[in-house]
């Protein structure tokens, strides 16, 4: 799998450069996928840079679902780096917009992220509530 992942990265990187001018929205999706792949390989700094690149590419886009998913990706990366304050701040900035989205993936990713934040930032009862939230999401 590591080989497959590395090959995917090799193929996606030139595609990202190619699509940046031609189709920024598609390029942003590529950057988000690359960010996920690099994060899985432990390249946290590069993953964060790619997620920020996606954020820039989506600036001014009308694809609200993608903008939110890009922001949720950044929250996820902050959480992976244990930067809870940055994760919380970024999530609070988009919380209102996520509730207005009718997109299934956005709703799901938001629910999981909200539960993780609740459970990781708070303790005790809030952690138990977060686990209940995740049970409901999985049901």
């Amino acid at each position: 799998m590591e080989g497959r992942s590395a090959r995917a990265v090799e193929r996606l990187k030139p595609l990202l450069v190619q699509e940046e001018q031609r189709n920024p929205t598609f390029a942003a999706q590529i950057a988000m996928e690359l960010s996920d792949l690099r994060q899985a390989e432990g390249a946290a700094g590069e993953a964060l840079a790619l997620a920020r690149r996606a954020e820039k590419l989506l600036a001014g886009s009308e694809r609200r679902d993608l903008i939110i998913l890009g922001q949720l990706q950044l929250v996820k990366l902050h959480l992976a780096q244990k930067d809870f304050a940055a994760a919380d701040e970024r999530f609070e900035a988009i919380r209102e917009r996520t509730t207005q989205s009718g997109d299934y993936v956005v709703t799901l990713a938001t629910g999981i992220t909200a539960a993780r934040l609740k459970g990781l930032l708070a303790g005790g009862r809030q952690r138990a509530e977060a686990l209940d939230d995740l049970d409901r999401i999985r049901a």
Partner: protein
Amino acid sequence: MIDAFEARLAAGELARPPERSAKLEEIAREARRLGLERIARRAEEIRREA
């Protein structure tokens, strides 16, 4: 299916030991059986952070 694994990963992350370790080990095993290597590796990484 990946969505369900994401929710399970989060639940594993928030669980208390020793349940935490067992849950994450189970997620990694199931994900690997289904060819979801990225999920499996994340589960192992979270387990190591304990």
